[in-house]
């Protein structure tokens, strides 16, 4: 159970909801509620905004494809024993 109360999308101001739309496009998936991580990152847009942009920069296709980078992300999450 999360150690903090995650706000519903409707509780966030408009700029944060815009971030949720970007996350929906990134994952190409219609979430019932924005993913928990998106809602956490939207608490402070001055942190979550650049953090998310850094992630997208890192995950975009380059010398490695997006799919290959998803594998890198998966193994990093795995060795960090992160079930999220």
């Amino acid at each position: 159970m999360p150690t903090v109360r995650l706000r519903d999308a409707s509780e966030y101001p408009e700029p944060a909801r815009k971030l949720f739309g970007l996350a929906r496009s990134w994952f190409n998936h219609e979430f019932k509620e924005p993913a928990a991580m998106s809602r956490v990152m939207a608490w402070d847009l001055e942190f979550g905004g650049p953090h998310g942009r850094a992630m997208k920069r890192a995950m975009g296709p380059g010398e490695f494809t997006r799919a290959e980078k998803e594998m890198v992300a998966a193994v990093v999450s795995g060795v960090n024993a992160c079930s999220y």
Partner: protein
Amino acid sequence: MVGITNALNVVADGLAAAPGGGALLPPVDEATADPQLAGLFAEIRAFYARPDVPAVFRVAARDPGYAADLWAATRRAFADQRLARRLKEALAFAVSLTTRSAFGTPFHLGEMRRLGVTDRGVLEVVGVTQTFSSYTKIADTLQLESDMHDIAPVDDSPAPGGPRP
């Protein structure tokens, strides 16, 4: 591949190269090694295109039979198959960097470069490793429950070589 990478790192970091230079369990000396290790060592040198056998395999070589099986598993995990060796080395580099392996990080970085990954490619892997090391810690600290598992269909592909259910 993740498992064998960690397995090699654990022994290399813990035994083969102790802080201060010495080894807690000295690797077999290639020059004076048991002749039955010659073929194994030659294969390892060829696989990594280097003149020496990495110390982690020479520690294992204190038991030649164990070393042969460890090497067979390592070679199988890292050889080109459905995933290219270049990508597997990138994954092993990410695993080693994340687990702060003093052996694995430079070893797999060297392999990535040898297989043609440029500075840009290395930084891409570093970027993904860094950002997901952030996300995972945030998720763990806040004990977030996974809500991303249904964004893609279940993949029932078998393990390499295995039968499809």
